[in-house]
């Protein structure tokens, strides 16, 4: 009888979702012809296969040319799974972002992370810009880990600072 009561208490206790918070900087560039970059953010397994897609920002305006034709220029993202996605993807894809720091927040209960098994991963951010360059950054992290983590990487050309905060 006592055992059954203890079990009941265990199931009704609230669980706090683990959190993954990303801050991604689109840098201000001093160029004559500026176009917002295409950016892909994903979680990569240790063998570089894709664990989950987090964000893809591309030209989505229906009045302009079909923006999906340049997604392949995010060449690592493309080969690691981007090419298999049908655009748009709910909760992942969106329009290109302006210069500035952009936040992405995910909880372990969100669909983007719900299936992410505990383990070591890399956060990968790839950016490519029309008549511009291409840059890729990797930030290693553990999911969900046992303590809070903060890690970052700094881009040199097409990306600014990418900061990652994990709360288990």
């Amino acid at each position, binding site marked *: 009888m006592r055992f059954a009561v203890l079990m009941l208490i265990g199931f009704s206790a609230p669980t706090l979702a683990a959190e993954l918070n990303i801050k991604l900087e689109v840098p201000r560039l001093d160029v004559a012809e500026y176009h917002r970059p295409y950016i892909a953010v994903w979680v990569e397994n240790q063998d570089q296969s894709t664990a989950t897609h987090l964000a893809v920002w591309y030209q989505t305006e229906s009045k302009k040319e*079909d923006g*999906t*034709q340049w*997604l*392949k220029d995010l*060449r*690592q993202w*493309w*080969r690691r799974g981007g*090419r*298999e996605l049908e655009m748009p993807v709910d909760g992942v894809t969106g329009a290109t972002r302006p210069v500035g720091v952009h936040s992405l927040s995910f909880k372990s209960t969100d669909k983007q992370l719900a299936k992410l098994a505990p383990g070591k991963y890399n956060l990968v951010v790839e950016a490519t810009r029309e008549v511009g360059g291409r840059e890729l950054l990797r930030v290693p992290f553990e999911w969900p880990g046992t303590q809070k983590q903060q890690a970052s990487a700094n881009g040199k050309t097409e990306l600014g600072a990418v900061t990652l905060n994990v709360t288990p």
Partner: protein
Amino acid sequence: MKTALRAVALTAALLAPLASHAHKAWLLPSSTVSTVDQWITVDAAVSNDLFYFNHVPLRIDALVITAPDGSKVAPENVSTGKYRSVFDLQLKQNGTYKVAILNQGLFANYEENGARKRWRGTAEKFATEVPANAKGLEVNESVGRIETFVTAGKPSEAALKPSNVGLELIPVTHPNDLYAGEASKFRFLLDGKPAANLDVVLQAGGTRYRNEQEQQKLKTDANGELAVTWPNPGMYWLESSLQDQKTSVKQAKQRRVSYVATFEVLPQ
């Protein structure tokens, strides 16, 4: 003796355009990694230098484009100029297209009424078009493929299914999944069977801008597999050829088999 020598010389001359190692034949696609509904344009040329048009166009009468679903697609906006043939292709399906020129046939020459006659055609037409008792009959056979591959979206393999005639390449690594610094593997088949110990030549484009040909001489292993590590991104030309006696008609003494492919290697 004299007649025999003349016959050999004639045969050699007939075969020269095909057997010539002096010029490379190739297809050059504008892209190999693309998206559905996008177009590519392909150049076809015969030239010593990779990948520069400076000699003659490659005729594309025998062009066969295989779509991801296995169906055949016609090229568009075809033209043949001084140095190259060009055509466009819209990638209406998701998956991998195989763009290939297949030249397969017999070449015969014989004596008729004191004159030397030449004939070229298929094995099927040989029996009816070439006199059975032709004098001084010399027959040679050739099976040659010139290919390239382009993928819209996710790579697929249906279009890469071998026909089991001549030299063919089938993926271990998909031909549109090639990246600088990585190792790739291809399997070569000869008439559908693994082509072991096959000599293969691999060369990167951009020959104009360097001092050496930098041609890699490779060999397939006992399973007909070839391992390649790509030093740099860019377009690469691959060629393999051999001669054997596996002819389609008994009058043909030998068969020349060749395979050429153009690959695009992307940067990391």
